[in-house]
């Protein structure tokens, strides 16, 4: 079913001109960071409108803070709903993490303990977000650098959130690899544990070796080990929308499109073997 396997890129500022100069760009969809377009007007929304005329757009958020113990910010949800209504996106996603508590917003994706209490809080927040947005969200597995004592594995936690709220998953294969390396779990066991039928989108990205931990930097090409894990992920979840995120040291668009061809090749190989 190769024709149903879609491939895209995270759209970033250095490539706006490439996407708008009239020359077709060989992607099936693009993903944008929601918060960059949750503004009142001006060039960002003009760019998004013109890109949307050419490509399906997925909205990917970094500030919903679905793990906040004190709930979600209603003003944030209303702004995101306005953007959803404007864009009619392919997907709306955010992370299994928290950023804000009280009046402090770290602007980072901070780790959650995988406990029953956290599960109830995340489920309540996901349900509230889906109510305001009027649609199902995708929840992305995070990279993490600290793990807390908890009796639930991350993939079991994700499965429980999906079961209780009806949300779906954005599977970040690089994040699985980074967290598995940092916390010493088996990434194949992770793939085996996720609810495969809930996965609607896959992220691929690069990482870097820090002093003691792997860091999810998005500033390098996708690593060979992550490509291998992507092949394993496709065997598990099938041909779902796949894209590459590059947020730093962003190369010319042609390099990212060539990298996306690697994903296409892995998808084609999976389809050939499945046929």
């Amino acid at each position: 079913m190769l024709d149903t396997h879609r491939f895209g890129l995270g759209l970033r500022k250095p490539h706006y001109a490439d996407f708008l100069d009239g020359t077709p760009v060989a992607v099936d969809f693009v993903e944008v960071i929601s918060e960059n377009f949750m503004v009142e007007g001006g060039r960002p929304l003009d760019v998004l409108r013109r890109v949307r005329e050419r490509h399906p757009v997925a909205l990917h958020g970094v500030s919903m803070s679905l793990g906040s113990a004190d709930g979600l910010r209603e003003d944030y949800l209303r702004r995101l709903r306005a953007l959803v209504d404007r864009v009619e996106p392919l997907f709306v996603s955010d992370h299994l993490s928290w950023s804000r508590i009280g009046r402090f917003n770290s602007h980072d994706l901070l780790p959650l303990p995988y406990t029953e209490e956290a599960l109830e809080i995340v489920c309540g927040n996901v349900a509230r977000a889906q109510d305001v947005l009027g649609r199902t969200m995708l929840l992305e597995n995070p990279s993490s650098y600290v793990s807390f004592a908890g009796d639930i594995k991350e993939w079991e936690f994700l499965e429980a959130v999906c079961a209780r709220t009806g949300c779906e998953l954005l599977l970040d294969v690089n994040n699985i690899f980074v967290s598995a390396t940092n916390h010493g779990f088996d990434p194949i066991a992770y793939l085996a544990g996720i609810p495969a039928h809930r996965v609607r989108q896959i992220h691929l990205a690069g990482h870097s070796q820090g002093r003691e931990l792997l860091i999810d930097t998005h500033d390098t090409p996708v690593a060979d080990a992550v490509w291998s894990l992507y092949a394993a992920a496709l065997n598990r979840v099938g041909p779902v929308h796949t894209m590459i995120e590059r947020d730093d040291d962003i190369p010319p668009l042609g390099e990212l499109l060539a990298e996306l061809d690697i994903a296409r090749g892995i998808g084609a190989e999976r389809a050939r073997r499945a046929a």
Partner: protein
Amino acid sequence: MRLLALQQNFREWLTSEAADTAAQFGERARPGLGVYLNNYRAQLLAFLSASYPVLRAWIGDAAFESAAATHIDSVQPHAWTLDAYGLDFADTLEHLYPADPEVPELARLERDLAAAFVGLDAAPVVPADLADVDWDTALISLVPTFKLLPVTTNVGAIWSSIANGENPPSAARLPEPASLVIWRHALTPRFRTVTAEEARALRRAQEGESFASLCATLSPETAGSFLGQWLSDGLIACIRCPS
């Protein structure tokens, strides 16, 4: 540990770097806590640097990073959008540079240009729209991105030179305080230095005074000149004539 307490402790770690707070997460968490601390500070520094490129060029990289570190130490981000984090950077600079008023003024100019960049859209009035205007009752509405910024230095000239890749002039106090009018024309933020008289007229128009009322305190030549300039700038969003 309950989730709320854990998140409050994590906040305490990111903002105070207190070793006893870190210890609550256990020795195994130490390397990871360092990563999150670095991410937190690096993200805010990168945001300030990207938001104030002209200011950074004016005071230099080392001074900018020192000022940003002071801001990060003293101001915690609170909004869901990072755009809100830099809004009071000029206040930090005012404390750091009491003898260099162009430094905070440059920050305020960059801040307000950035706000205009993403402000509400509005198609400006063009001369063809003026045919049926009753100037005795006309009310002028300015575009939603309009802002007046009081200045005491030649910060406008400094900004323009640096933004155009030219050598900036030395900082100098203006002979008398003035204002910069800031707005967005089409998709591009703009600014222009205005006299105290024009700033007063713009402020009164924004507050809803009729054009006839403005003209009562201006010479006919000045009123006509202001109106022509505002139309040419694209500063007027609409002219209403209450019946």
